[in-house]
């Protein structure tokens, strides 16, 4: 019995150990490249440049890799692509990765490390551009994008730009919006200060205050509007501890103290904020456009709310944070011409319009917002466009995940009162300085 017990325990421990350290194994050599990079000039030197002419008369097969196509817009697009170009011998198929953004990134990263040509085109989150580019995993699409530059909303192109080159074509963009209750708020407030002031007496404002990526976005929206910043222009130095960031953070902290925002926002992600807003009490909500259609199905707020682009920060300007996805081409693609043709088609006027009308995806192309069908399908098209136009990208860095953690952990602790805003910025600054020194 006792011997067997000891053996049993040892086996259990071994199994635990194997399970635990197993995840260390799959990352293997080359130690995954954190996130993006900037500052180190020439990090993308020698990257292959796409030949725009190669897409004329392209033939063969191409694969479009993406996170799970939950709405179905990609599958529809690829089907149309195949009916249009299949006769010429160009066929596309879809390869779906899991829904989670981290997992999509892992899947793509693994294929690129293995120099696999499985993914010709990949649908990359806007925050991955810099990392993929420095790892030399992508074709430089500058000549192609240059030829279409005027079509895109300029801010969406900043999300594909790294090291002065453009690495992808924006396919879906996104920007947070200010939701407000028309029965509680007479007029859209012109400043964030007004928003909070009205919120205090009308049921509050809800946003994403839990310690995760969403809080980084929510904080930066206010901080950028207040004139703040995170890193130096070349991305090499942390400049997080500055008076403008402090203004924004104090503003958020005071908002919770004086009851403009419920203290429960410190545990809210998008869904919690949405449910709280739909329950009828809050007068304002910061959320992504997806909450619009859902809100109009919620009995308590249906038809009683509208959206607006963000107001300005008193004494400073307006800002937002850009979301969305870009189509990038793998440098290991065996059919770059066909891949470019596919990207060209998936980001065409026709497809982007269709995605907006049928699937409520925010268009990165400026002209699409003027389409009557789009205006009808997205009643807030004008506000959304303005939101996208004034949006900025998140800090570009190879150690972005650590930078983002330094922001959301410390901001969250300031919101819950665990540390003062001054301490939070000081700690965030120190953590970023350490992160930037990562080997």
């Amino acid at each position, binding site marked *: 019995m*006792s011997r067997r017990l000891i053996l049993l325990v040892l086996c259990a421990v071994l199994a635990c150990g194997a399970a*635990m*350290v197993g995840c260390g194994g799959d990352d293997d050599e080359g130690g995954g490249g954190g996130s993006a990079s900037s500052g180190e000039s020439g990090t993308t030197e020698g990257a292959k440049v796409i030949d725009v002419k190669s897409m004329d008369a392209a033939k063969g097969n191409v694969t479009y890799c993406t996170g799970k196509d939950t709405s179905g817009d990609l599958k529809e697009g690829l089907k149309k692509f195949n009916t249009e170009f299949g006769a010429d011998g160009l066929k596309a198929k879809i390869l779906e990765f899991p829904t989670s953004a981290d997992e999509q990134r892992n899947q793509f990263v693994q294929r690129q490390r293995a120099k696999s040509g499985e993914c010709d085109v990949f649908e990359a989150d806007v925050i991955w551009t810099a990392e993929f580019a*420095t790892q*030399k995993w992508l074709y430089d699409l500058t000549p192609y994008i240059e030829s279409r530059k005027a079509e895109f909303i300029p801010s969406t192109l900043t999300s594909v730009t790294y090291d002065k080159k453009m690495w992808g074509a924006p396919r879906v963009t996104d920007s947070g919006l200010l939701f407000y209750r028309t029965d509680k708020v007479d007029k859209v407030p012109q400043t964030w200060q007004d928003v909070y002031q009205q919120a205090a007496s009308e049921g509050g404002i809800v946003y994403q205050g*839990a310690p995760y990526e969403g809080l980084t976005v929510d904080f930066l929206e206010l901080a950028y509007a207040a004139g703040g910043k995170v890193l130096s222009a070349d991305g090499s130095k942390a400049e997080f501890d500055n008076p403008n960031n402090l203004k924004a953070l104090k503003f958020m902290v005071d908002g919770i103290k004086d009851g403009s925002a419920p203290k429960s926002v410190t*545990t809210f992600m998008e869904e919690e904020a949405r449910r*709280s807003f739909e*329950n009828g009490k809050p007068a304002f909500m910061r959320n992504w456009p997806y909450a619009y259609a859902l809100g109009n199905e919620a009995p308590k707020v249906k038809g009683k709310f509208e959206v607006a682009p963000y107001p300005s920060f008193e004494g400073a300007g307006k800002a937002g944070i850009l979301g969305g996805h870009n189509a990038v081409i793998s440098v290991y693609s065996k059919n770059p011409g066909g891949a470019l043709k596919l990207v060209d088609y998936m980001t065409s006027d026709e497809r982007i319009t269709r995605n907006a009308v049928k699937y409520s995806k925010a268009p990165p192309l400026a002209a699409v917002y003027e389409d009557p069908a789009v205006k009808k399908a997205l009643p807030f098209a004008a506000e959304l466009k303005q939101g996208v136009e004034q949006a900025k990208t998140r800090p570009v860095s190879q150690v972005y995940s650590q930078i983002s953690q330094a922001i959301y952990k410390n901001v969250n602790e300031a919101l819950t009162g665990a540390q003062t805003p001054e301490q939070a910025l000081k700690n965030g600054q120190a953590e970023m300085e350490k992160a930037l020194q*990562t080997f």
Partner: protein
Amino acid sequence: MEATTVKASTPQRRRSRGLSERRLAGYMLTPSLVLIALVAAYPIVYAVWLSLHDYSVRVPGLKRWDIGGNYVEALTSADFWEAFRTTFVFTGVSVFLELLLGIAMALCMHSAFKGQGALRTIVLVPWAVLTVVTAMMWRTIFQPDLGFVTSMLSTFGLPGADIVWLGEDGWALAVMIFADVWKTAPFMALLLLAGLQVIPEDVYDAAKVDGATAWQRFVRITLPLLRPAILVALIFRTLDALRIFDLPFVLTRGAHGTNTLSLLAYQELQQNRIIGLGSALSVLTFLIVMTVSLVYIRFVGGNIRALTEE
């Protein structure tokens, strides 16, 4: 026991046959040993190997030797010791509560009554639910504003309606412990029930004849005879609890004093992709779990031997 009998009766034949038998046994064990080495030892050795290097997050493929540096960094960071403390507080409190509840539940299930089989099945339901799902469920229940707990408290005018359960130090850990106890107490109960069932009824009958009260029977008979089962259950639960990952990951993402060792290792390895440091953290967690189990065997394993020999 049989081996010694053979030894005694046929001393001469044993020597030649024993050797070859031993060798044969060795050969026969080789495949399983190789398999164990591949499945269990390889990842562990590989993690140790990774933890002795730095892998660049900037330049693809760049790495360098860093003997011990990652361990020094891990052991000198405040995050590690906070996670260490959280993990042990969580383990200690949750396993203790699970044991108490488990014993109580096992005693209930052990007493004969109609529908016993059905009850045993029902009791196991929480344990059958995936931990991630459990965590999601409790997160919704403890949600401020709309969550069940908050609405109940405010409906009845009880204090605590304004507590942000998952957003305050202390409460967040309490919810995490609560969710774990809810989920794994039935498992504990089942292990203990198996132990209860091997205790012969006549012992109790004899005690009754001698005039022992119910409490005396419980303390003097049930508990001592249940000890081997309790120890096995404790070891299982302790090792499990020390590696807790899914509950804090879903409930709080490690904020508000709920960051555990496994979660910390995950953050460095998967989110930040700092492979050397992340592996060092995994190895440290592994060593801690190993140490705890050795302590169990050292101080408790002996007891079991004594008990079984009685």
